[in-house]
């Protein structure tokens, strides 16, 4: 190993004696800001749940209003898909690291865990956040065509165009996420090599 040279000592001194901006916070200020942060998270989550609830209520109303059994099944599946997605969002949101865990985890462990969390998130966009809505959507489309036989051609055409476009967007998102997940996995593998050499 190279010996400690005077320039490196000088650089350490330059580093350690750099001018300070003197930013200080009292415990009361920290507590106040931490409280504000919690409130922000609380309201953001509350907003998400209220928005989801509004959509569920709308579909529940449609479910109750319609007389067609297949349309009911479609709305029911849509509601079930939404509830599942909200549950997933809640679960993923609460899996973020707590500050005490940050103190227990070394940089390597923490960084790998964060990358794995991101990889799982981008890798599961299709299966967790889009897939659950598809059965309800398909059943609703079929029910719509079945209950409006007079407009079958028009419905069939718009159904095909819209679904082709949606499929294209889904495939694009899926490919992009796959690429991002692979990139994250490469970085995780690099860290695993470092970990394996412990």
């Amino acid at each position, binding site marked *: *190993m*190279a010996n400690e040279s005077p*320039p490196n000592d000088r*650089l350490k001194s330059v580093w350690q004696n750099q001018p300070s901006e003197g930013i200080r916070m009292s415990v009361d200020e920290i*507590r106040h800001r931490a409280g504000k942060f919690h409130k922000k998270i609380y309201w953001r989550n509350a907003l998400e749940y209220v928005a989801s609830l509004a959509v569920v209520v709308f579909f529940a109303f449609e479910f109750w209003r319609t007389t067609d059994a297949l349309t009911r099944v479609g709305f029911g599946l849509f509601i079930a898909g939404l509830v599942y997605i909200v549950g997933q969002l809640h679960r993923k949101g609460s899996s973020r690291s707590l500050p005490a865990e940050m103190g227990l985890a070394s940089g*390597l462990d923490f*960084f790998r865990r964060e990358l794995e969390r991101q990889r799982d998130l981008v890798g599961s966009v299709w299966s967790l956040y889009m897939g659950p809505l598809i059965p309800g959507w398909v059943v609703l489309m079929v029910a719509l065509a079945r209950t409006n036989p007079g407009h079958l051609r028009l419905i069939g055409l718009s159904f095909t165009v819209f679904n082709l476009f949606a499929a294209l967007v889904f495939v694009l998102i899926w490919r992009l996420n796959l690429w991002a997940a692979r990139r994250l996995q490469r970085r995780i593998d690099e860290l695993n090599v470092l970990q394996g050499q412990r």
Partner: protein
Amino acid sequence: MPAPPPTQDELYREVAETYDAALERLARAYEADAEARRDLLQDIHIALWRSFEGFDGRCSLRTWVYRVAHNTAASHVLRQRRHKSQTLVGLEELESVPDHREGELTADRRQALERLMELVQTLKPLDRQVILSYLEGLDAASIGEITGISPGNVAIKIHRIKNILARRFQEGGRHGE
């Protein structure tokens, strides 16, 4: 009768007193933008205060403080990288790439600090943790505890850091090769 363990607030006050300047340097090494840096430093202080609720003395207070600070800053870098297309490099790459200012005399402390900061900010988070700990004067064992890198790998990384610093900041350059 043994003294009661320090409270969350007492631990935070002690840390704020002792590591105030070091935490500011750490935030500066992770965020170049002044406003975002203030936010990051604030996040680090909040994370530290909150973390002391669960501090059980399993590791030293210093290791705990640096882990929380580095991990908070690493999260910040990960979040920022989604918005900025910044390419970060490892020590290995940095060691093999020559710098156009290599061997330039950096007698001026301010200029040396600017170049040092520039170098640190191009590094990947884990290598950044190692170089920052080295510049803060921590020994290899402490660096290993904070980063989780094996002692052997810490030694290799410190060797690389010394080579890079010697080449880039020493008059005449190319020392340590």
